[in-house]
C-alpha cells in the first residue's frame, strides 16, 4: 500500500542488479540486487567487513565488478561514467583532499570538475558549518572534514549523494546536523541518499529503505518498516529456550540469566499459540537484527 506511491512513475536513482565481486583475499560480494527510488534515503547496513564499502566502490567504478550491472540515475555507471559522476556527490569516511590544501584550495580544485558548481552555495555551507576557508584540510576535525565533503557534494547539486560511514567518530551534534541536512536535501523529491553506516541510530527514523548486507550477501532490501516489522526479539530465561524456539530462531544470544532471540514475526505468532506468557516479545531494532543475525555459532549453539 505504501509502495503504491512508488510504483510506476518513480524513477530509480540507483539500480544494482546481480553484482558480484571476488577478491583475491577470498572475500566475495555475492549477487547483490536492489533498487533505490529517487527522492528517498536508503540505509546500507551491515557489520564491519560485510561488503558495504566494496559495494560503494563498485558503484563508483573504483573496483571492477565480476558480474551484474549498475545504473545510476538511469545511466550505466561504466559506459556513462563521466555523466554519472557529474551528478554524484560522495562523502567518504576519510577526506579525499590533499591534506595541505586549504578550504579555499579545495573549492578551487572541485569547482573545475563540475559545470554546475555554485560558488554562493558553497560559501553558504561554509558559513553554516563554520568552515574556515583558510584552514588546511589536515587541521580540520573529523566532523569538519565530513562537512567539507558534504558542502562540496551539495554545491554542485549532486542528484545522488553517497555517504560511506560518514558518522563514524562524530559526536552527536555533528550527526544530528548531518541528518537535518539529508532531510532538507531529499525534501524536493528529486534528490536521493545512499547512506552506509554501522551506527544505525542515525537511520532508525530517517531511512525510508534499508539494504542489509552481511558476509558479502544481501540479507534484506526494502522499506525500513517492512524490515523492522518482519522480526521480533523474544526474551526469556534459559529454561524457556527449548528445541522449537531454537529451531525457529534466526539468531540467539545466551547469557548467564537468560537469552534474547530474533524470530520472524510469523514464527512468533505460531509460538504464541501454544504457550508461554513468561516470554517477552518486543519489536526489533535495526541493531538487534544486525546483532542477532551475526551471532557466532558457538553462542547460538
Amino acid at each position, binding site marked *: 500500500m505504501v509502495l503504491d506511491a512508488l510504483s510506476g512513475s518513480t524513477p530509480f536513482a540507483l539500480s544494482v542488479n546481480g553484482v558480484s565481486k571476488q577478491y583475491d583475499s577470498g572475500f566475495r560480494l555475492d549477487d547483490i540486487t536492489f533498487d533505490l527510488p529517487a527522492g528517498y534515503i536508503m540505509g546500507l547496513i551491515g557489520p564491519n567487513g560485510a561488503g558495504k564499502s566494496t559495494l560503494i566502490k563498485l558503484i563508483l567504478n573504483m573496483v*571492477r565488478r565480476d558480474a551484474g550491472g549498475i545504473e545510476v540515475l538511469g545511466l550505466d555507471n561504466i559506459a556513462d561514467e563521466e555523466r554519472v559522476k557529474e551528478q554524484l556527490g560522495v562523502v567518504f569516511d576519510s577526506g579525499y583532499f590533499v591534506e595541505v590544501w586549504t578550504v579555499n584550495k579545495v573549492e578551487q580544485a572541485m569547482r573545475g*570538475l563540475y559545470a554546475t558548481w555554485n560558488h554562493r552555495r558553497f560559501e553558504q555551507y561554509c558559513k553554516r558549518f563554520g568552515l574556515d576557508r583558510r584552514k588546511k584540510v589536515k587541521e580540520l576535525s573529523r566532523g569538519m572534514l565530513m562537512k567539507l565533503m558534504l558542502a562540496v557534494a551539495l554545491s554542485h547539486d549532486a542528484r545522488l549523494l553517497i555517504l560511506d560511514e560518514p558518522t563514524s567518530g562524530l559526536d552527536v551534534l555533528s550527526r544530528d546536523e548531518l541528518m537535518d541536512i539529508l532531510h532538507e536535501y531529499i525534501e524536493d523529491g528529486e534528490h536521493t541518499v545512499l547512506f552506509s553506516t554501522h551506527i544505525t541510530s542515525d537511520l532508525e527514523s530517517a531511512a525510508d529503505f534499508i539494504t542489509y548486507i552481511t558476509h558479502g550477501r544481501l540479507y534484506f532490501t526494502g522499506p525500513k518498516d517492512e524490515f523492522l516489522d518482519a522480526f521480533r526479539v523474544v526474551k526469556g530465561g534459559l529454561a524457556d529456550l527449548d528445541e522449537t524456539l531454537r529451531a525457529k530462531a534466526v539468531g540467539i544470544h545466551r547469557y548467564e540469566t537468560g537469552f534474547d532471540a530474533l524470530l520472524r514475526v510469523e514464527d512468533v505468532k505460531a509460538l504464541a499459540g501454544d504457550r508461554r506468557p513468561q516470554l517477552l516479545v518486543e519489536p526489533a531494532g535495526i541493531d538487534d537484527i544486525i546483532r542477532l543475525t551475526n551471532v557466532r555459532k558457538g553462542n547460538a549453539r
Partner: protein
Amino acid sequence: MNAVVKSMRVDWARITSGGWGMIAGYMLMSPAMMALFGILFGGDDSAGAIAWLYQYISGMNLLMFVSFVTFPAVYQDTGNNADMNGLMPVSRRNQVIGRYVYLLLFGIMLVVENTVMYPLGFAAAGALGTMGAMPWRTIAIQGLVYALCSALVLVCSYRFKGQTLMYVVVFGGSALLILGFVVTMRFEDQVRAVAEWLGGHVFSSMGLTVALGVVVAVIALAVSYLASVRIYERREM
C-alpha cells in the same frame, strides 16, 4: 567542459599544493641562476664560463621538469587523495591523457627555458656580443632525454605508489645508469662500432638525426601512454 581539461585542473591543484609561489620559483630557478651567474662572472672574458655553466644548469632544469611530471601522482598519494580520482567526472583514460598533456607542456617549457637561458646568461654578463652560435645540439638532446625520462617516470607513477615510486625512480634510474656504464665498458668495441656507424650514416645528416630523435621520442611516449592506460584501467582503487 572537457573531461581532460577537468582532470588537468585537478592535477594543477595537486601540483600547486605547496602554493603557486613554490612552483613558479622552481620553474624560474634555472633561468634565474643563469642570470645570476652571468652577473657574477660578468665581463667580456666570461663566454667560456657561461657556456660551461649552461651545460649544468640546463641539465638541472631537465631533472626539475622530469620531477614535475610526477607531482600529481606524488600529491595524490598523500592521504586518501587518490579517492578523488574515483569520484571525479573524468574517466580513467581521460585522467591519463591529462597527465600526458602536462608531460608535453612541461617539455615545451623546458625547451623554451633552455633556449632563452643561454642568451640570458650572456646578456646578464653584458657579453651578448661574444655569445656565438646557439647550443641547439644540447637543447635538442635534452629535449630527447626529457621525453625518454618523463615517459618512463610517468608510467612508473601509475605502476608504483608514493614512497615506492621515489625508490623506483631513484634506484631504478641509478641502476639503469650503472647498467649502461657496465655494458659500455664490457662491450666497448661493439658500442664504439655502433656509434661510429651511426656517426657516419645518421648523425652526419642533420635531417636524419632530428627525424630519428623525434621517432624515438614519439615511440617512447606512445608506449608509455598505452602502458599507463592499461595499468590504470586495471587498477582497483
